[in-house]
């Protein structure tokens, strides 16, 4: 991939991990700190070669704890920054990920999932970290996590991840499937001038008036960079709007509410969900990432046989699209939740369909290191009849 692609969009062959790397560069990412781990390593490898060409910085840190820490430091210094890892590394990043959340520092964390727990199946696909992405760090915290299902979407959602991170001043997680990370697909990247790139809002007040944790505008305060004359304080302790530690219950509560509300008040902006053949669907399949691809193939085959089945696919997996899913499931008689784990999304589906929802829940869970095939989904569809 050359730094400047022509303006005429042409299909190119691209790997999922490469799409993430180039998406990040196109989003303006200029700092990558990471530690190699299969199946995410290509992202680091590509960026180690590319970033300096863009005047950006690549650093391989001593571990994932440090990787997460250094990208937060870089972001505070004004760089759009990112790291990429997989399960074990993602576990190690949790403490500092929480720091990024409470300190409201934009950045993007890519987790290319592999089979877990622990070292598990380093080269096999899995969707075992979905719940961890939501709850992995201690304490209450908001989470935005995106989930692509194609190489093109790897590119697009990486850019979107940066946009959301900058807009909502928060770390954003990109959850990926190993299959996607490693496969190559023909993609047509949008022309660069068509890309919508968001940047964090900078303060336009004198330093004396600057409060970097104010609830304005709309729960998100502008963010100055270090060295721009604002000289503010950032801490992982509960803090007041000036960023200074506080234990005053009202101030703590205000801070916690802001963290939550900046996400929950903007669900319409944050949540993206795909409905595939859902208009008349009696059976819904709920699946993310590569499983959704199998589902689509299954749906096409099932529809050929006249079975009314459709797919609900979350592109935004966190915050969970509660309302959208509930509404889409209203008229279905069964929902097949297909996932490559022992049952994570199914719990969310059960949770959101609480009131008198009587459609059947059908689980399709696979955690052997193999991906769910269209045939397996077809079999589950057959079970409904």
């Amino acid at each position: 991939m050359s730094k400047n692609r022509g303006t005429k969009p042409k299909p190119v062959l691209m790997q999922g991990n490469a799409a993430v790397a180039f998406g990040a560069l196109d989003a303006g990412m200029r700092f990558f700190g990471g530690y190699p781990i299969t199946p995410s390593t290509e992202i680091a490898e590509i960026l180690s070669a590319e970033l300096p060409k863009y005047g950006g910085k690549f650093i391989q840190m001593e571990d994932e704890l440090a990787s997460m820490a250094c990208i937060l430091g870089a972001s505070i210094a004004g760089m759009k920054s990112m790291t990429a890892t997989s399960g074990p590394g993602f576990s190690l990043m949790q403490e500092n990920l929480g720091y990024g959340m409470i300190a409201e520092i934009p950045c993007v964390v890519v987790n290319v999932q592999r089979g877990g727990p622990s070292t598990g199946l380093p080269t096999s696909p899995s969707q075992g970290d979905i719940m961890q992405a939501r709850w992995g760090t201690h304490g209450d915290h908001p989470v935005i996590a995106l989930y692509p299902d194609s190489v093109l979407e790897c590119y697009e959602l990486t850019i979107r991840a940066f946009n959301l991170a900058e807009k909502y001043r928060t770390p954003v997680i990109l959850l990926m499937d190993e299959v996607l990370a490693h496969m190559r697909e023909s993609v047509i990247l949008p022309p660069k001038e068509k890309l919508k790139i968001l940047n964090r809002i900078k303060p336009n007040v004198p330093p004396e008036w600057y409060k970097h944790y104010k609830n304005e505008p709309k729960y998100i305060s502008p963010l100055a960079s270090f060295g721009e004359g604002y000289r503010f304080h950032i801490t992982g302790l509960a803090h007041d709007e000036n960023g200074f530690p506080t234990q005053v219950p009202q101030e703590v509560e205000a801070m916690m509410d802001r963290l939550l509300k900046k996400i929950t008040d903007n669900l319409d902006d944050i949540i993206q969900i795909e409905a595939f053949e859902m208009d008349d669907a009696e059976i819904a399949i709920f699946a993310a990432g590569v499983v959704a691809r199998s589902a689509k193939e299954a749906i096409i085959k099932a529809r050929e046989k006249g079975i009314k089945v459709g797919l609900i696919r979350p592109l935004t997996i966190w915050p969970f699209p509660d309302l959208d899913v509930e509404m889409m499931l209203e008229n279905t008689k069964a929902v097949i939740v297909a996932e490559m784990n022992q049952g994570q999304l199914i719990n969310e589906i059960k949770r959101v369909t609480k009131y008198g929802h009587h459609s059947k829940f059908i689980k399709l869970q696979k955690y052997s290191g193999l991906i769910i095939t269209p045939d397996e989904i077809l079999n589950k569809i057959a079970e409904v009849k």
Partner: protein
Amino acid sequence: MAKMKTQIRLSGSGGQGLILGGILLAEAAILDGKKVLQSQSYGPESRGGSSRADVIISDEIIYFPRAVNLDILLCLTQEAADKFIGNLKPTGIFIYDSSQISINPIEGKAIGIPFTELAIKKFKTAIVTNIILLAFTCKITNVISLNALKKALKKRIKPKYVELNLKAVRLAVRLAEKYLSEGSPQARE
């Protein structure tokens, strides 16, 4: 009407350039205006031992990313042949290196050519075996155009090696033409 969709596997051992082969095939397919998806083996399997690259070429959007029912299986080692022959469709084509592999009869079409031997004989190096295999396959199966393959080659391969590779393509084409007119001795052996 289901349009064309072809699943191809290149297999052999690490260092035989099969991943590159898969990528070339995929890029060529794009030049032919196809949708394409390429994947490969990772993990211990991919180090030292065996190597594998899968390519799915289609007129339509490709959802399921695995090649499970192969239309074309290309093998350069016995181990790969033993391992993957089961994934070949009954109607599939099996193209193998007869200088490395001995096979039992199979239902479908099997074409054995001593690719490695030929490469060493003609070019004094096994390095172009993958290209000969690929070009031969293109000519035999028409899965992608030779033209596209050549373009892809020129794009991906270091300039100083392009000429050598194009020679390999020419050799492969002659081989294929010969095979198409005469049949190879190893076929259906």
